C-alpha cells in the first residue's frame, strides 16, 4: 500500500510499504477513505520530536471502512464505516473506566520510555513517535487499529467524510478545551491560536454557553475564519495590538473568565536518557513557543481558568507562575479523551449545530502529501486544514 513515511526532519515521502496485518485479537484493519494532516504532525515533520524512526508512517486523523477484524471484535462488522480516535484506549483499565481515555494504562507498548520522562505513561497514539507507542499512522491506504471494539466509532447514514473526519481529533480537542473552561453564563473566553483546534474551541465555547469569544492570531485568513465561520465575537491580531491590554479593555477591566492556549509548544519529551539532550535542544530551538502560554497566564482574569489543548512535551522556561498563583487560576490540560466526546459531538453534527468541514482549505491525493506538508508548515496559500482523499 501507499503510505506517508517519515524519513527525517522535513523529509516525508510517499512509499510503497507492506499492508497491515491483524496482530492481536481486538485489532481491525481499516481501508482509509479520508485522512488529515494535523498541526501536531508538523512537530514531527520539523524534527522536534525525538524517538521518531526512519520509515515510521505518519498520521492520526483518519477514517474509512473496516476490511478485516480480529477474532476478539464482536461489535463491528466488515464494511462498517468508522472514524478512528487518535488516542488508543483499551476500555478496561481504571483510566478508561473513569472516562480518562487518553490516559489509558495499557495501550503504549513503549510505556517505559514515557515513564522515564513523565513518571507515568499515558495512552499510545497513532503515528506519533515511539515514546507514544510507535504505532503506524493513518496517512496511508490501510491502517491497523488496536482495541478496535472500543475505538472504532460507526458513522451514521447520510453524513460525509468531511463532516465527521474531525471527530478523530481536532473537534473533540477544541471541545474539551472549552469544556475545561467550566463556562458559566456571561463568561468571556479568549482563545489564542486560530488553527483548526482554535476554530473548534470557538464553536464549542458557544455550544457550552459562552457569552463572548475573543480569538487571537496573527494570520488574517485565520482571523477571518474565526470571525465569519467559527463565529468569534471579536478577533485580535496580536501583531497589531497587545493582546493582554486589548482583552482588559474589551472586558471592562476584568479580563477574560477563561483563556485557551490552542498554540502549544512543539517540543515533545522522551524517555531514554540518550534522548534527553535532544529534548533540551528542541526546547531551546523553540524558546518563542511558550510565548502564548505566558501571555495566557498573565492575561487571564482573577479566579479564571487556563485551558491548554496545545501540545507540550518537555520543559518550559520562564513561566509566569506567580501570575497563576496570585490570581488563583485553575489550569486544565492533557491529551483529548476522544472516546468520551464521540456520542455528544456526533449528535451536534447530526443536529446541524456544526458542520466541522468549514476548516478544510485543501483536499489532495496521497501523492501530494509531501508538498502539502510544506504548504501547511509555511501557511502558504491560506492553508488551514489539509485532507488527503483516498
Amino acid at each position, binding site marked *: 500500500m501507499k503510505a506517508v513515511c517519515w524519513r527525517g526532519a522535513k523529509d516525508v515521502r510517499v512509499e510503497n510499504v507492506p499492508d497491515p496485518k491483524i496482530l492481536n485479537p481486538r485489532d481491525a484493519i481499516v481501508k482509509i477513505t479520508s485522512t488529515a494532516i494535523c498541526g501536531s504532525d508538523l512537530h514531527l515533520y520539523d524534527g522536534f520530536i525525538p524517538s521518531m524512526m526512519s520509515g515510521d508512517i505518519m498520521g492520526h486523523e483518519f477514517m474509512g471502512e473496516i476490511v478485516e477484524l480480529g477474532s476478539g471484535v464482536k461489535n463491528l462488522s466488515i464494511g462498517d464505516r468508522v472514524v478512528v480516535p487518535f488516542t488508543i484506549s*483499551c476500555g478496561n483499565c481504571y483510566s478508561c*473506566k473513569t472516562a480518562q481515555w487518553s490516559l489509558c494504562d495499557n495501550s503504549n507498548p513503549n510505556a517505559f520510555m514515557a515513564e522515564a520522562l513523565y513518571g507515568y505513561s499515558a495512552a499510545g497514539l497513532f503515528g506519533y513517535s515511539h515514546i507514544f507507542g510507535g504505532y503506524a499512522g493513518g496517512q496511508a491506504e490501510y491502517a491497523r487499529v488496536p482495541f478496535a471494539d472500543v475505538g472504532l466509532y460507526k458513522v451514521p447514514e447520510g453524513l460525509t467524510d468531511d463532516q465527521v473526519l474531525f471527530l478523530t481529533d481536532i473537534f473533540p480537542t477544541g471541545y474539551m478545551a472549552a469544556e475545561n473552561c467550566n463556562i458559566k453564563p456571561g463568561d468571556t473566553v479568549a482563545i489564542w491560536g486560530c488553527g483548526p483546534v482554535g476554530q473548534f474551541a470557538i464553536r464549542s465555547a458557544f455550544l457550552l454557553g459562552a457569552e463572548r469569544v475573543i480569538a487571537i492570531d496573527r494570520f488574517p485568513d485565520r482571523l477571518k475564519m474565526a470571525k465569519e465561520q467559527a463565529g468569534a465575537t471579536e478577533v485580535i491580531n496580536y501583531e497589531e495590538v497587545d493582546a493582554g491590554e486589548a482583552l482588559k479593555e474589551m472586558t471592562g477591566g476584568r479580563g477574560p473568565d477563561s483563556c485557551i492556549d490552542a498554540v502549544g509548544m512543539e517540543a515533545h519529551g522522551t524517555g531514554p536518557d540518550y534522548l534527553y539532550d535532544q529534548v533540551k535542544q528542541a526546547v531551546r530551538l523553540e524558546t518563542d513557543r511558550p510565548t502564548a502560554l505566558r501571555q495566557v497566564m498573565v492575561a487571564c482574569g482573577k479566579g479564571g481558568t487556563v485551558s491548554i489543548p496545545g501540545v507540550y512535551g518537555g520543559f518550559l522556561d520562564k513561566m509566569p507562575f506567580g501570575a497563576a498563583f496570585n490570581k488563583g487560576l485553575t489550569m486544565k490540560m492533557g491529551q483529548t479523551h476522544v472516546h468520551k466526546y464521540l456520542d455528544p459531538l456526533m449528535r451536534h453534527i447530526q443536529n446541524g449545530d456544526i458542520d466541522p468541514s468549514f476548516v478544510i482549505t485543501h483536499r489532495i491525493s496521497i501523492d501530494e502529501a509531501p508538498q502539502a506538508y510544506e504548504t501547511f508548515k509555511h501557511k502558504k496559500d491560506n492553508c488551514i486544514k489539509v485532507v488527503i482523499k483516498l
Partner: protein
Amino acid sequence: METESDKTNQSQSQGDATVSDTERWASIVGGSAMVLMGLKQRSLRGILTAIAGGSLAYHGATTDKSLQEKVTDATGINKAIKVEKTVTINRSAEDLYNYWHNFENLPTFMKHVKSVQVLDLRRSHWVANAPMGQTIEWNADLINDQPNQLIAWASEEGAEVDNSGFVRFQPAPGDRGTEVKVVMEYNVPGGMLTATIAKLFGEEPEQQIGDELRRFKQLMETGEIATTEGQSRGQ
C-alpha cells in the same frame, strides 16, 4: 553505610533469630512500605524461608556472614541483584492469583522465560532464554503459598542462577483493583559475572520486571498484550 537502625537490628538478630524477627519480616513483606528498604543488606531468600516457617535461624536471614560471603562482598563478585516493582491491576486478587499460580502461564507475559513445567505441588522446572541462542534451566521450590495473597519461590540448591522472590496481591483502595508487587533477588554464586546475569534477565532488571508486570496487567485487563511487532512501516 551502617545506620543506627542497622546496628539495632544486628544486635537483635544475633544468634538465633527470634519469633519477633520473623513477625517483623512478615510485616515488611505484607506491608505497604517499599520492601527493599526494609530488606537492606539481608537475603530475601532467607527471610522468605523464615516467614514460611522454615528454620528461623536460616543462614541468610541474619546479618552474620560467612568468611566466603565477606570475601565476595568485598570483591563485589557475589552481588545480589534485588528488584521491586508494583503495578495496580483492575481485576480481583483471586483472578490474578489464580492465573499466576498456574506457573505454566507465566511465559505468556515473561518474555525471557521460555517454558515452565510444573513437576509436583511444590516444584517446577524453568527454562529461560539466554544470549546467543542458549538456554538456562533450573528447578524452583514453592516456599510460601497463601491463596489470593502471596506466592513465594526459591531456586533449588545448586541452581546456576540462584533466585528467589515473591509476588503479592493486595486489594487497592477505592475499587481500583489489586496491587501486585513482585520482589526478586538473583545471586550468582558460581562466579558468573553480573553482566552475564544482566544480559540473561534483561539489560535493566528493574525495567524487565516492570515490563513483565505491565504485560501481565495488559493481559489480565484487556485479554491481550499491546504490540507493534510486525506492523507496516517503510523499509
